[in-house]
């Protein structure tokens, strides 16, 4: 079986494909969370006029380059994003950086609210290695309170020592690595309470 996402990618690789005129649900509300900002996007079938946080916008959205390149004209203003499925959401690459978006439809969102979930939690949970490398120093101990910006672990990679800092406040629960240890990208180094 071709996974669903691959189908989507291949399909949207056709440069000339217009947004199809049929087969879409009549109306759909999506809640998109980027960082601590939330965007309500209402899409009505294949109507080019959508609303975002209540404001009407005329959009023209296409995919190119095998589906990864998303071109958006929003009221004729040009945007370009490279979208990559990641952790149930999307990694969004754009010309000036990257961000992560979580997207849920209205139904799921309502359900979640009922169940008391908070959506994309942004509290300090764990420190992951941003690249493969060698741990040259661990600067914290279990039980230690840290605040945003505190140095946690130094990883040597690409011939440079990189100090990984806390992105928020928290209390160290467990150190998963020790000095001299080689780590993979995204390997968990420190767990917080």
């Amino acid at each position: 079986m071709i996974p669903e996402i691959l189908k989507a990618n291949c399909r949207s690789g056709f440069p000339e494909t217009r947004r199809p005129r049929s087969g879409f649900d009549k109306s759909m509300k999506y809640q998109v969370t980027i960082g601590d900002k939330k965007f309500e996007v209402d899409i009505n079938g294949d109507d080019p006029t959508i609303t975002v946080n209540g404001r009407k916008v005329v959009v023209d959205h296409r995919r190119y380059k095998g589906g990864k390149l998303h071109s958006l004209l929003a009221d004729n203003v040009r945007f370009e994003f490279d979208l990559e499925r990641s952790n149930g959401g999307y990694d969004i690459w754009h010309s000036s950086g990257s961000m992560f978006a979580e997207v849920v439809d209205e139904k799921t969102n309502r359900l979640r609210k009922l169940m008391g979930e908070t959506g994309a939690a942004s509290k300090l949970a764990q420190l992951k290695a941003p690249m493969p490398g060698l741990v040259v120093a661990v600067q914290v101990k279990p039980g230690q309170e840290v605040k945003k910006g505190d140095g946690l672990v130094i990883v040597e990679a690409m011939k440079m020592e990189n100090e990984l800092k806390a992105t928020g406040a928290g209390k160290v629960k467990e150190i998963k690595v020790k000095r001299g240890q080689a780590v993979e990208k995204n390997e968990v180094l420190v767990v917080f309470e």
Partner: protein
Amino acid sequence: MFKKVLIANRGEIAIRVIRACRDLGIRSAAVFSDADRGALHVRLADEAYYIGPPPSTESYLVIDKIIDVAKKSGAEGIHPGYGFLAENAKFARACSDAGIVFVGPPPDAIEMMGDKMAARKAMIAADVPIVPGTEEPVEREEQAINIAKEIGFPILIKAAAGGGGKGMRIVAEESEIKSGVRGARSEAKSAFGDDRIYIEKYLARPRHIEIQVIADTHGNCVYLGERECSIQRRHQKVIEEAPSPLVDEVMRKKMGEAAVAAARAAGYFNAGTVEFLADQDKNFYFLEMNTRLQVEHPVTELITGIDLATEQIRVASGERLSFEQDDVRIRGHAIECRIYAEDPLSGFLPSTGLLRGYQEPSGPGIRVDSGVYEGAEISVFYDPMISKLLSYGKDRKQAITRMLRALEEYRITGVANNIEFHKDILKHPEFIAGNLSTHFIDEHYRPAEEPVSEIEEAAAVTVALAEHEVRNKVTLSSLKKNVTSSWKMSWRPGSEFNKK
């Protein structure tokens, strides 16, 4: 002239040398580690030789392997690029022992300039101004404290074998000296296998200005104006320009002549760079001489019209310099932004991974010296430089304007990069005014914490539309209707959809 040259390097500088070879009608032979089989320098060279596993200590730094493949290839010369073996006197000697020309200076000059202490001594003898400091390596921490007290704080602790900011510590007061010495020493040891350090006066708000020189083996030595490289992060240059906003004709001549004196004192030939620290009053002090082609050499090429890489190879083959001092004319202004796979918002942490999307800028006044292509990998094993983006204009204002335009056009996805960082610097009023110093980043760079809300909103809309599209699975037939025949023709392999 040589018929074949081996390039003992990788990435953009290997490609720069391949281009120089082609311009001279020379065949180029690349080398590659396991991590670089698909790298752009291998794709562009005429020949390519495997030299071992990804770590450079097992491939690009192994002298014997390089000499072996050079012999196997029949290359008459080896160009070392920068980094790796470029400033390794042993390697230069191994080349000549093997009967192959090292495209660079004589080993003795490399050795002398590589030893900061020896270089300082030679400069004093040649009347080249130097920064006050030690002339001998510092042995014990107590000794360091005494010297520091003598020349006054702040001081700079530097690796004798150093370069590129490695093994370097700034010490502002006595209490920090011991840890500074220890840190610099251990970093120097692991980076260069040589833990000797020395100490010099640390200049507050200095400018880093360097002079390009080139000399032939017939006794001619010429300076090609200056480059200002004050914009640094992690003690490494990120933005360079030529000419320097500080330097006028008088200062240029003084610095140029000092640089030529420095080169002559070392018995130098081939291309080299004499680095100076300058204060805002136009005093300048010898810092070190880089005995190789610099990363930032293209800004000099742009303002002088002289092709440094081909000139290097010409000189190495025994030719005379094709120009004299009086022929060197500076026209216009050039800027280089080093584009790194790194995240300026996380302390310039390097980023690795696949270049999902990669589109270089072009157009009037733009040159891109890059070592990558769309679909290539930024590997963990080497320097995370993606490219050198260069702009040229009739004056500094136009060079800045064009650089900002090129940065705006540049599209890199899949790895973090410092394009926004460069934009922030180039738009900064102090940069525009030319008020530069090596502390510029610390003093002035304040990254925007939040992305522009307009972009976030557009991203949210795009995500919602993408999700909407995926959920409302469109049948293939409805899509095929709109596809032109030429597209169908080319979409054949690997696609399920054209097979019905």
